[in-house]
Every structure is written in C-alpha cells, then in structure tokens.
C-alpha cells in the first residue's frame, strides 16, 4: 500500500462515519458539526486527486462559510430541542433501507467495472497541467472558457433562488 492509499482509506472512513453520524444525531448542532468533519475529509480527497484549488475552496466555502450560516440558522430558529417524533416511521425506514441497498449494489457493480481505459487521464496528466497553468489557472480556464455558458446559467439560477427565498420569507406582503 502506498502512502496515498493509506491516507485515502483513513479519510474515506472518516467521511462516511461522519456523514452517518450527521444524519443520525438528534441535536442539529451536532449534525452540523459532523457535516464539517465530512467536508474536511472530502477536501483531503480532493488533495489526493491533485485538485488543490478545489480542496482549498471546499474548506473555505463549505466547511467555513456555509457551515457558519447553518449554525446561525439553527441558533436563530432555536431548534435545539428536537422531540423524538420527528424521526420517520418504519415505512420510511424500510424505503430508506431499500434505497440504500440498491445504491450500495450499484456502487459494488460500478467499482468492479470502472471507466474504460480510453477515457482515463494519464496518472501524471493533472499534476503536469497544474505545473503548467497553476492550480487556479486550470480551473479558471475550463470555468470561464469551456463551461462559460453553464457558469452564467448558474448565476441566473442563484438569482432565481434569491428572489424565491425573499418572496417566501419576507415578513410583510
């Protein structure tokens, strides 16, 4: 086992365990903090994939800014005392288990298949590109040239979300 694989397995276990704890904790604050832990583990995975900029953004934006917003909302709404009745009934749990089994089976099949060799990038191609263009330049090139249209649609999407949130939340109509 190389050192990359060792780090991968550690972060993989941390990510899945934290995600599981995030959805099973009763207290919303505890859930949010376990989500932070998941985000950090994912950031390490991005690092292992040579995506340094994404890893940094993952920590700054998700583990940082978005989590702070989550915690603000939890504290403002004061939902700390959740009763046990908000857990789903046994039908919901059965559906949950069924979907989990289907997805796990699919993952198992996919892990045996993998993408064909033709579409895989070479082992060093990403780090080589990063050396040429820089970690940020690599993202910027594809974000503002190749994926310019999706990038702009995303901005309209966020506008729609803002308008919608204000419409639903403003106090006086």
């Amino acid at each position, binding site marked *: 086992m190389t050192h990359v694989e060792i780090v991968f397995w550690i972060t993989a276990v941390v990510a899945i365990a934290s995600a599981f704890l995030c959805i099973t904790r009763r207290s919303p604050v505890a859930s949010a903090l376990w989500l932070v832990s998941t985000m950090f583990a994912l950031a390490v995975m991005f690092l292992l994939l040579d995506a340094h900029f994404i890893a940094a953004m993952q920590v700054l934006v998700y583990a940082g800014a978005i989590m702070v917003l989550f915690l603000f909302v939890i504290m403002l709404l004061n939902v700390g005392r959740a009763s046990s009745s908000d857990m789903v009934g046994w039908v919901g749990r059965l559906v949950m288990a069924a979907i989990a089994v289907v997805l796990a089976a699919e993952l198992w099949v996919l892990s045996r*298949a993998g993408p064909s060799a033709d579409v895989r990038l070479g082992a060093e191609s990403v780090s080589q590109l990063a050396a040429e263009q820089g970690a940020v330049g690599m993202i910027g090139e594809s974000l503002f040239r190749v994926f310019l249209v999706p990038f702009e649609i995303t901005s309209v999407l966020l506008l729609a979300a803002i308008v919608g949130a204000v419409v639903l939340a403003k106090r006086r109509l």
Partner: protein
Amino acid sequence: MIPAYVDLSEASGLLVALLPEVFLTGWVLLLLLVVAWQHRSAEDQQLVGRLSLAGLVVTLALVILYWLRGPEPEGLELMIALDGFRYATAAVFLIGAILAVAISMHYLRRESILVPEYYLLILLATIGMMFMGGGADLVVIFLGLELMSVAVYVLAGINRRSIFAAEAALKYFLLGAFASAFLLYGIALIYGATGTTNLTLVYVQISAMGLQTDVMLIAGIAMLLVGFGFKVAAVPFHMWTPDVYDGAPTPVTAFMAAAVKAAAFAALMRILVQALAPMDSVWTEAVWWLAAITMVVGNVIALAQRRLKRMLAYSSIGHAGYLLVAVTSGTDLGTAALLYYVLVYTLMTVGAFAILTVVGRGGERDTRIDDFNGLGSRRPWLAFAMTVFMLSLLGFPGTAGFIGKWYILSAAVQADQFKLAVVLVGASILSAGYYLPVIMAMYMKDPVSDTAHVETRAVGAVRWVIGVTAMLLLLFGVWPNAVLDLAKEEGRQLRPAVLVTVSR
C-alpha cells in the same frame, strides 16, 4: 443582421446563438428593478404582469426569427443546439408561459395574492425550460432544469395564506431535490463512462468505443430515467403530483402541468435520441414499461376523482404516459409526434385550467364536477369551450387531441410496438369515463340553484385565453397539416448530427 454561421467555441458566437435567452434574462433583471420600486398595490402587480407578457412576446418573436433564419453552427454544437427542435420547444414553452401569465393577471387580483415577483419567477422558469429544450450539453440541460425547478417550487407556495400551497411547495421541493440528485448521479456516470458531457460527443464515444454493454453507462441511463421519471410524473414516480397540483394556485398548476412537463419531455427526448441513440436497446425497454404503467394507473385513478382539479392532475399523469409512448419509439416520427402533442397538450391543459379558475373560487380545491351542472344553459360559450377542452383531452375526432394521439399511435406502430399502441387506445377509452361526465353535467343536468353561475364570468385576458386555445384546438383538429409538417421537419433535425457536422 444575424450571421449565417457562428463559432460556438467563442464567447461572441455563444452570445449570438443565445440571443433569445439572453434577452429574456436581461428583461428579468430590468423587471426586478421595476418591482423594487413598484410593489405596493394590485395596479403595480398588473403592470409587472403586462411587462412580463411583453417580454415573453418579444422573446417568442426572436425565437421565431431564429427559427426562420437562425445561424448554423461552425463545427460542433457546444453547449447550445442550433436546431429546429430547440426553437420549436422554446416556442411551446413561451406560449405556455404567455397563457399562464394571462390567466394569472385576474386570478391574483381576485384571490388577493400580492406578490409581483410571481411573474419574474414564471419568466425565470421559462428561461430554464429554454435551456432544457435547447441544451447541447448535459450540464446545460441540468442547470436549465434546476433553474426551472427552483422557480416553480416557489410558485407552488406563492399563496402564503394557504396551508395546502405550503404543503405543495414543500413536497415538491423535497421530492424535486431528490429527483435532481438521481439525475445528477446519472449524468456523472455517463460522464465517467464516455469522458464527455456534450450530447453529440457522447454519441460518438459510445459508437467509437463500443460502450453498448458498459455497466457504468447503463447504470447512468437508469439513474437518468429515474430522475426524469420524477420530473415528468411517470408512475411509479408520480406520488407528489396530485397533492402538488391540487395545492398550488390554479394558474401555477396550469403552468406546471403544461410547460414544466413539456420541458422535461423535451430534455428527455433530446438526451435519448441525440446522445444515447446507440443504447436504444437499453432504454426502450425501460421507457416502454414506464409508458404502459403510467397510462393505465393515471387514467384509472382519475376515474375515482370527484374534484375537478385533482381529476385534471391525474389526467396529466395519464397524458405523461401518452407522451412516453412517443419517446419509446425513438424515431423521427416519434419526435415529431412528441412536438405536436406537447403543443396541443399545452393549449388544452391551460384552457381547461383557465375555465377552472373562472368557475371555482379560493384555490379551486373544492370545485366538484357537480359545480358545472347546468353551465350549458347559463353560460353557453364557456360550456362550449370546456367541451372542446374535454373532448380534445379525450382524443375525440375533430379536435387537435385526436390528431396528436393518432400521430403518437402511428409512431408506436411504425416502431413495431403494437402492444403499447393497444394500451394507449385502451387507456383513452377509460379516460372517457371521467372527461364525459363533465360535459354531461354541463348540458344534461339542471343548475343546483337559481343563482348558480351568476358570478361565473370570464373577464379580461382569461376570456382571450379560453377563446384562442379553444379555437386553435378546433383548427388543428380539422386542419393539422401545417403544424404537422413543421413538427416532422423539426423532428428530423434532432437526429444525431454527427455525420453532418464532421463533413462541414
């Protein structure tokens, strides 16, 4: 004025290619400023409605202009398609949006819903739809779908005084997000298998690399179908539909049942035909079953409904089944049938919901079929229009619905799917069991009281909507040739343009 060829790998070329969408987006931004100052009275809201209508009409004109003499792509179609299918579907979405805005103007005033942003959300949803029908890249189609969905989630709950609207919005949001996750997972797997998200390149990669039995690609297609199954409300992914359609304000329901569904079908058809044509042995089977079950279940449950809004919700599930039959065939004729039926379906659904807003009150949840008793003698024109919509939804000869269904049937038969054609005919016969009672109530039963239907009056734009849609349905029913030829022409253009593009 418009260049004959555009290079879609350049930002300037993209700007030209995306002019209709860019115009509508700019119009939304301007209207946001208008709303920021003018949002206090019903008159302000009316003004925003009129301006939205103007923006939609101009965009429709732009789309038609592009349709007639649009630019051709120089090389590969990147991100956005420049084919007739894009313009045809965009025109249908814009017509749906125009009709929805027109019936909203009076409705919002009557139900005293004062939210001028309502119209902006309809415009934003329409922009999303245009990207769904016109995207040449899975990423663009997905973002278009999200843009549409986010706006429609809010529209469903726009009446904050109604607890049913809140339930509808929340249910729609949660299940919609769930469906989007499936769709995104499917797109990721397709990307993983082929190494690209461009529809044409996906087609090329599948053929060139021989991925017909690739596990990852098949799993991706399965996820994609589940995601779209939710969005088009195909059985067994339809559970959210009745409650959401029931709880949302009726013009929003009309918009959802017509334009939102049409957009999901346009995106599904484009992805399946343009990118996944070499995989048709995989998805035909799956879509076949979805279509058959959806037709039967939607129509059978609709039979049991007594409230008109809920009945129309189940009827729209049944119609999703008919449209899935057109998708199943996967041929040019199937695409043409889908285009024609989507247009006709938009007209008749919006028309039927428009009459519901006239007859019903207070969200129309409680409007029963009995409430139409004796409408024929009191309001003959309204009853006549409702008859046209019901007969067209049923697929009665002489209406556009019949031609549309006939066309779907011939597409199914041409693709050797006789069993599916039989199911379609059977389901249509079943549907007579709930469309005809509405007509019988209007003409054969007496009004419940002397004062019944006194208040029932179509005013302003609603009258126009009802009149124009009913007349168009009759016109396309007896003289469908022009629209049919157009649909055939555009259906042909959807075929993977690989060979054409490479040779240019």
